[in-house]
């Protein structure tokens, strides 16, 4: 009906370096209004850095960041007025009550008194914390604190919500509830949400996913399209003995994705599985066929699995130690 809408968030050619590490390497993307956009990547991929640049805590070494068409680098105050953010670490004052925390936020953002009171009530009701209104924040559970932080981020009626690893440290139940609120909020008002996460299952419900690793964007598209473009049916198998595993790996050398505790092969359909079975069927202890999932998308894009990302280096060190370190070789 009108010309193309101004993108809610636009990042162009942003780079950021910490000392020798390049945290962001020429990152560009656009998020249209109303979208639920996920930044997926392991710890240290640069997700938080990107969000901090968007909310003007950090300055990029190069590039532009625009929020609702406003350049946040030139005009940080205007940019900040439009966005709400939930930081990775809690940033509530736990010696104030819930109401006082929200009121503080409203005052600081210049929300007029009557509107402020109305919104605080609305928001508390929305995240189901109305009964706790006069309690000190330190008496809340961590799931409740997260919900309160969402409510706070919306007090000044931000159109864009940044959630930085919002569900880290929450149990499965609170995590699910947290997402319920986010989805409900999106339905009630046209809210653009940008969320960073390293939980793959949370990303399935998003409109678009941007996979980011070592500061580079590897892919961005809707989950379904990502799956069909980069997804790969995988066969995971555990052989009866080491020798068999080595033999299978040698036979399908070009298909091996990973070979450690279990052998992961790229599959090209049922025919492949049947051929594999016919040849090595009696030497396999366990075999599973995995449909294309975001997990496998990530695996094929980065060559590693997201789940062990955080622990990757650590586990390697342990392994190293177990083998006696460098002295025994």
């Amino acid at each position, binding site marked *: 009906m*009108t010309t193309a*809408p101004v993108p809610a968030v636009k990042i162009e050619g942003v780079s950021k*370096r*910490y*000392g*020798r*590490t*390049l945290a962001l390497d020429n990152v560009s993307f656009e998020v249209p*209004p*109303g979208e639920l956009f996920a930044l997926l990547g392991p710890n*240290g991929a640069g997700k938080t850095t990107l969000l901090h640049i968007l*909310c003007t*805590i950090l*300055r990029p070494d*190069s590039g532009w960041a625009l929020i609702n068409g406003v350049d946040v*680098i*030139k005009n940080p105050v*205007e940019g*900040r*007025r439009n966005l709400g*953010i939930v*930081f990775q*670490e*809690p*940033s*509530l004052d736990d*010696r*104030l009550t819930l109401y*006082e925390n929200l*009121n*503080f*936020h409203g*005052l*600081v*953002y*210049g*929300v*007029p008194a009557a509107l402020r009171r109305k919104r605080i009530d609305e928001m508390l009701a929305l995240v189901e914390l109305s009964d706790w209104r006069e309690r000190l924040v330190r008496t809340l559970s961590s799931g409740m604190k997260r919900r309160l932080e969402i409510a706070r981020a919306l007090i000044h*009626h931000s*159109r864009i919500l940044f959630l930085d690893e919002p569900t880290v440290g929450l149990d499965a139940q609170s995590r699910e509830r947290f997402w319920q609120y986010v989805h409900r909020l999106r339905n*009630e*008002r*046209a809210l653009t949400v940008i969320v960073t996460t390293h939980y793959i299952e949370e990303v399935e419900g998003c409109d678009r996913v941007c996979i980011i690793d*070592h500061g580079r964007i590897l892919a961005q598209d809707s989950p379904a399209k990502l799956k069909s473009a980069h997804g790969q049916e995988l066969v995971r198998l555990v052989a009866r003995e080491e020798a068999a595993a080595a033999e299978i790996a040698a036979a399908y050398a070009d298909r091996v994705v990973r*070979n450690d505790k279990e052998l992961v092969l790229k599959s090209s359909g049922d025919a492949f599985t049947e051929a594999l079975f016919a040849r090595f069927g009696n030497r396999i202890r366990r075999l599973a066929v995995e449909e294309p999932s975001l997990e496998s998308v990530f695996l094929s894009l980065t*060559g*590693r699995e997201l789940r062990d*990302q955080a*622990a*990757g*280096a*650590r586990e*390697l*060190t*342990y*392994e*190293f130690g177990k*083998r006696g370190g*460098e002295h025994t*070789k």
Partner: protein
Amino acid sequence: MTSPAIEISEKPPSAIMLQLGGVYAIWLREVKRAIRDRGQLIGGVSRPLLWVLIMGIGLNPYFRGEIYGEVRFVVPYTYLQFIFPAVIMLNIMYTSVQSAVSTIWDREFGFLREILVSPLPRATILLGKILGGTTVAMFHGSLVLALARFADITLTPLDILHGLAIMFMLAFGLTSLGVVIANRVRSFEGFGVFANAVILPLYFTSSSIFPLDPSLTSAQTKVVYPEWLVMLVELNPLTYAVDALRGAFIHFYQFDPRLGPIVLGVMAAVFFLIAPRGLPKARPAWRPFPPDPPPPQADQRARRPRRLQDPRADEPDAAVAVPRAGRDADEHECQRALQRVANPHRRRAGESAVDHRDAKLSRGAEILFDHQPRLGHLYPDGEHEGVDRHSPRSAGDREP
């Protein structure tokens, strides 16, 4: 386009209203936190009780001295009356410092970030913070006034107003000083040391518990007291604060009555102007766009002191992939310093040491692979990929 649900956003508030609202919000928060902090309140009550009732009453009889066999009133007031304004100042000093602790607290526990992301300028944030601390400090100072009866001091409303004005200037200056120092101190422990190392010496040398007799000439004063002590007292700005408070409450001045307010005003202004300097650089001065900034690497190297520069930085990459075996301790220290600076996972206050141990381990592995990519051959193919992938220097090494 789909957005019928968007509410029409209210008009952005005028800049002045926004600033006032911000100052009020931060002020209110400081005051509320202080009211809820029992420990602070107990300190604020017990300190004057000790000083006035025990020190004051205990030393009262010894205040009138006898010099050269001739009884002489050093000061035409009792010791209780004399020490009373100083105790007000002591209370204000402690409370101001306490509000500086809350600045460190905010920084360490993330709340400062919430404030810094808000559309408020730094000066407004500081003003709110300092006014909040000032209010609390003035309240604690006023608690002492409840003991005026025991000290035999009659207070007229005008005296009280005069006193409150002086107390406000003093508290404002001291709270600003607290914030200045809190912005430069990295830990609570460090601040504790500061508090004791600064408050008590300043208090004792401010002519708070003994008078420099105004009836004596300066030569005579130096006979009674050692010269260095007289000098310390005269250099201490708080001497004039106590003097101004004495003037307000017992109408006794040791110095020129105009001196007190001037010294206090200058102190408040100077410290308030320095205070924004140390605030974390969350809102840097933005460079105009474009041109592109110079490569940060070179930038940083130039700014770093020679001692901390990586001695290998100028060598070609391939030559430094394996560190030399016989490097000296100096170089080792230098590397450690660099790693500490570069380590984004280093433990900050408030984080548990146990998690940190894991982070350190994984960080250790990364560094190891960064500097010794040949270790890679210890692993079966593909296994170490995750770690050294992003190391620019190891890329050439791993070519088959």
